[in-house]
């Protein structure tokens, strides 16, 4: 055996799996399809605006030709271009008129470099949701199963936030919260007065407001309030694979990293009921080779994980590995995005802030928790947002030129409040990732076909959230309140895709058991977003971290006792 464990994918989930497996003394191989990236020296975080290529803009023709989909993300610019795939080189298929935005980057660390760092726990309301309203299948775990693992990953990652004592948004091990600014405090006071069942809190985020000895030992320092996190952070001020889990795994001496290797498929030995090899293709030479280990963690992210399983066909699994349930690739979810409002906040013109806080405010879910859903919809949504004073770019909507314009822009603009919602998406089997029968990519692998739409419940949640955003700003005294987005964005926009290899109690209707272990293949664990049985409305990465760590320890226990 080459290794004790192989981890496929180096994003948030794979990084965590590798760290925990290495720390348990297992010789671990981490396979990444993209290129190697060096923490700090490969980042452009110290470039001033005037030093960036084209002041941060990507040339228009290049953007259209190579990044038509990726450039729709707010975090895409000339300083982060290296963190996004070229759509021209990495095509996928969607049905006519049913867009799905698949936003991603192929490099060591994956999307842990570009994520928005919002970190929230799922609650028992989430883990119990499918059972309660009958959508999807029941989660095989509850909050108490994951809670200690949330504690573990939060302490290590470093999460800044405020404890609120809410059932729907459990508190965690927080570093000191970042403060609300004047407009946000005013909004909080007015909103909570008007709606005692709603709460405004600071966005919980994986930025080190106050590093602990554990963080410092890994070479991480405090967040410097630059708010250019998506470029990569030379201070290690936010959690990424490169700043945190990878150095932790490396210092055990048990980690081997292979980059530029695309996992094509997993070989299955039916006699032993095990994965016998991981087949890879060298990105550059296209040569094939394989690796062996006692256990495999598939953490390629939701869509590629389904792709690898569906592409691993054998006599025993003609529809794809670990797919006796026919659930692999199904139940694809994201969070509905594109609801929100913006309004002018009167007053506070003599107040301002210093620094660029890398998080905003958060309004936890209240629909069907503290307020009923008016019988119209199940589940709910949460809002993110912020109060701010706009800067010079507000002049693009202002008729003004000359010395008068200059004088005006020397001052920040009047305060405004922005709210944007993320609504829960139900698991539906028809929202599905499949492989195209004949079309292939540069490496000869079948192209992914993504068919995903919002259902009736999602559209009702979105409409209600949109309405509430405007109503809340108005209730808090904002003027000129208007919609923030012209329409809902296609699924995929939130970059919270999940669900394509769900956990469940019953092997006939789910892919993974309560330990993220494949029902069909005991030495296969899947801990990225594909394991999610429901989507909640909170940002999911923290849950991937907790489930990855939990599964890694389960696997290590079984390896130690010889059960694997």
């Amino acid at each position, binding site marked *: 055996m080459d290794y004790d464990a192989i981890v496929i994918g180096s994003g948030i989930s794979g990084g965590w799996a590798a760290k925990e497996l290495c720390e348990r003394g297992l010789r671990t191989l981490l396979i990444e399809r993209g290129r190697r990236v060096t923490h700090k020296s490969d980042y452009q975080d*110290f470039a*001033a*605006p*005037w030093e960036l290529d*084209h*002041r*941060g*803009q990507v*040339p*228009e*023709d290049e953007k*259209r030709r190579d990044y038509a989909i990726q450039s729709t993300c707010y975090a895409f610019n000339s300083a982060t271009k290296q963190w996004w795939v070229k759509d021209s080189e990495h095509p996928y298929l969607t049905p006519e008129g049913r867009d799905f935005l698949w936003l991603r980057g192929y490099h060591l660390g994956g999307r842990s470099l570009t994520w928005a760092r919002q970190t929230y726990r799922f609650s028992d309301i989430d883990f119990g949701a499918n059972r309660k309203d009958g959508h999807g299948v029941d989660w095989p775990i509850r909050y108490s199963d994951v809670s200690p693992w949330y504690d573990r990953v939060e302490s290590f990652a470093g999460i800044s936030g405020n404890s609120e004592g809410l059932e729907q948004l459990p508190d965690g091990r927080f570093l000191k919260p*970042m*403060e*609300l*600014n*004047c407009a946000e*405090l005013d909004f909080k006071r007015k909103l909570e007065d008007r709606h005692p069942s709603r709460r405004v809190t600071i966005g919980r985020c994986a930025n080190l407001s106050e590093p602990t000895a554990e963080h410092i030992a890994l070479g991480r320092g405090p967040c*410097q*309030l*630059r*708010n250019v996190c998506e470029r990569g952070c030379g201070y290690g001020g936010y959690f990424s694979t490169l700043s945190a889990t990878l150095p932790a795994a490396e210092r055990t001496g048990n980690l081997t990293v292979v980059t530029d290797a695309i996992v094509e498929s997993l070989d299955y030995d039916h006699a032993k009921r095990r994965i016998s090899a991981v087949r890879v293709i060298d990105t550059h030479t296209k040569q094939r080779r394989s690796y062996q280990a006692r256990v495999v963690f598939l953490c390629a992210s939701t869509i590629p994980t389904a792709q690898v399983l569906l592409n691993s066909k054998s006599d025993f699994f003609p529809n794809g590995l670990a797919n006796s349930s026919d659930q692999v690739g199904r139940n694809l979810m994201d969070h509905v995005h594109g609801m929100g409002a913006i309004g002018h906040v009167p007053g506070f*013109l*003599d*107040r*301002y*802030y*210093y*620094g*660029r*806080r890398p998080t905003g405010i958060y309004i936890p879910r209240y629909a069907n928790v503290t307020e009923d859903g008016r019988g119209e919809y199940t589940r709910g949504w949460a809002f993110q947002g*912020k109060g*701010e*004073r*706009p*800067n*010079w*770019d507000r*002049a*693009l*909507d*202002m*008729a*003004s*030129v*000359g*010395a008068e*314009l*200059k*004088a005006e*822009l*020397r*001052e*920040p*603009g009047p305060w405004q409040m922005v709210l944007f919602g993320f609504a829960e998406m139900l698991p539906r089997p028809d929202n599905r990732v499949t492989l195209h029968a004949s079309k292939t990519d540069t490496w000869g692998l079948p192209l992914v076909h993504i068919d995903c739409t919002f259902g009736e419940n999602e559209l009702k949640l979105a409409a209600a959230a949109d309405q509430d955003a405007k109503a809340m700003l108005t209730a808090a005294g904002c003027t000129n309140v208007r919609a923030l987005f012209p329409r809902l964005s296609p699924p995929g926009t939130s970059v919270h895709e999940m669900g394509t290899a769900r956990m469940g109690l019953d092997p006939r209707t789910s892919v993974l058991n309560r330990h993220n272990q494949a029902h069909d293949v005991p030495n296969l664990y899947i801990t990225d977003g594909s394991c999610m049985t429901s989507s909640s409305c909170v940002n999911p990465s923290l849950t991937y971290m907790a489930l990855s760590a939990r599964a890694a320890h389960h696997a290590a226990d079984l390896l130690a006792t010889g059960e694997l």
Partner: protein
Amino acid sequence: METGSSEKLNRRALLAGAVFLLGGAAALTRFARRPGDPAAADGPALSAEQFSLLEQVSETMVPATDTAGAIAAGVPEFIREMLVQWGSRSTRVEITQVLEAIEQHAWRKFGMSFLEMPAERRLVVLKEFDAARIAAHEGAYRKFKWLVLIGYYHSEVGATHELRFELVPGAWRACLPITEVGRASAFYGN
């Protein structure tokens, strides 16, 4: 090595395309550049006269006051470079058309070229033009204004002298008297 030379070729092709289009768009005016002008193949995206107009329009939009104006901040050179290295063909056409339209407005208003009139009249011309195009939410003008403003406010002098920019703020202070903070941040958004 290979990449470098093919990039150079692409850049040449891009420049040639830019020159041809700018010639086409501006052909009706005195700022026309003849397609195939030998000086143009490797040269700037704008003719000398178009560039002079760009300089004066930029400076009128962001004049020198107690701090540097657009010309001293390098805005015209920045826009010229952006038109070659960043803008698509349609953007290059749009931006030259905006410049042409400002020149035409100068003739309509005062019967002379924008370049030949005194600064006070330039301000009158640009102010009227700006008000009309902003009210009409005109995309091409918005893009032009954005180029001038990002050219200025994200230049070193614009960001650090005219406005305030800390590369590493090092702290978050959520609610301060504005007098303690100083000028608006040059950063996008906040």
